[in-house]
């Protein structure tokens, strides 16, 4: 659909139409940059920007910055500074080595959460009670019946029987 109508250079990727009461009033064909300049994209920034969080966190506690800078994982050699710059950790052990600064980072990244909720590996044996799964399947079965989705209801019934007889 041709070049951007504003800068006339880049490919127009935003095609906007103002629909008025009686006719299509206005059509605009803009490239991404020009659309952004006109404020048509809104904020494309992801809600969760790790580097931004890191900056916030580090500048928030200048006193402890030196202490943080000294943190290093003896297993993989990752330093806290490196982690801060790259955004990825070096090994599972880093979660313990950097536990304190990470906890704050995770809280702001995950809406205040501090502990995992949900699935865990089979070897740990917890939260794998079939009762939980049965409760879930029965709830879904109710929904399927209410929604008259009988094919799904039948397959859910089979699963429930399977678990009950195991």
């Amino acid at each position, binding site marked *: *659909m041709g070049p951007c109508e504003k800068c006339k250079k880049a*490919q127009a*990727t935003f*095609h*906007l*139409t*103002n*629909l008025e*009461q009686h*006719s*299509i009033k206005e059509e605009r064909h803009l490239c*991404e940059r020009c659309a952004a300049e006109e404020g*048509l*994209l*809104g*904020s*494309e920034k*992801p*809600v*969760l920007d*790790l580097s931004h969080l890191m900056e916030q966190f580090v500048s928030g506690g200048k006193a402890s910055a030196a202490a943080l800078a000294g943190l290093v994982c003896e*297993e*993989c*050699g*990752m330093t806290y500074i490196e982690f801060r710059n*790259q*955004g*990825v*950790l*070096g*090994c*599972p052990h880093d*979660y*313990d080595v950097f536990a304190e600064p*990470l906890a704050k*980072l*995770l809280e702001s*990244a*995950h*809406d*205040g*959460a*501090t*502990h*995992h*909720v*949900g*699935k*865990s*590996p*089979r*070897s*740990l044996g917890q939260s794998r009670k079939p009762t939980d799964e049965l409760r*879930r399947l029965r709830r*879904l079965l109710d929904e399927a019946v209410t929604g008259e989705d009988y094919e799904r209801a039948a397959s859910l019934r089979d699963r429930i029987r399977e678990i009950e007889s195991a």
Partner: protein
Amino acid sequence: MTAPLGDVVRQLGEWLRGSGPQSDVVISTRIRLARNLRGFPFLSRASVEQRAELVQTLATASRRAGDLAKLIHVDVEKLDELDRQLLVERHIISRQHAEANGARAVAFDREESVSLMMNEEDHLRMQVIRSGLQLEEAWELISRVDDSIDQQVEYAYHAQFGYLTACPTNVGTGLRVSVMLHLPALRLTGELEKVAHAAREMKLAVRGLFGEGTEALGDFFQISNQITLGRGELDLIDDFRKDVIPKIIEYELAARRSLIKSRQQAVDDKIWRALGTLRNARLMSSNEAMQCLSYVRLGLHTGRLSAIDLHTVNELFLQSQQAHLQKLQGERLTGEQRSVVRAALFRSRLGHINQN
């Protein structure tokens, strides 16, 4: 063991068959889980030998896991750029996985519903994609895949933080739910940005078609969660299933109805112009193709157009993308050549249909 990719070009994965629930608005439902193996560093610190060993260990684990034994294994490191791009277009691997370096592999099923990416950002990224809105079904499947692998390997898991991931933004459940939506009416009525804003307020990410790192492209939107710690998988999936997605579907369908009611000729004009462009253009960029196909799809789902079926639209949607185009053509093409070949593809596939 590398499978030939030549024959996948002419097929459609299950997720693009357009057969799932609410497929008039929801293109696909994708759920992925990030996992790492205990006893290995994360990939940024893994040696060449460790990377190779990880692929070996994970491939063996999936071959031993009964229900995963039949997956097709592909050595991504050995693929040329075009084949890697092909897998990205089919959503079998992520762009990041395609563009990374070093030993890495993928295993996927014939339906292209399940894929196990080995050495992506984490040691293992497994994903399930289904057509339409199938959150519970996708979760059941991915959770079973996870259990099967879990029986063969030991995951890196932390009592407080849950499943450990290379990037702390994925730690906890390692779960990412992404729902791909087609929202042409909301864009036409100028309400798309409101929806995107509301989603962001709920700490959900809004992206374009190919996920992380891509901007919103035209009428296709992907909505995914960002929070992975402190909320159970089922609660998170319920947010999408009961709250977020039904609301957006409702808005889009209401916008479609009101457009047809008050602006029928303007909407018909968009739809038929799009079809006319597809049937007649001599040069066609991928963006223009996407936009035209979006209007044609809108035409199908609002009953304004019936001469084409959804299967053909979805097929063209996939085959007009650059790697597919070059594979079908059997040669490498420059951008300009692709525009010519893309236009020819649409003319040959849509030229004969009856106009009504």
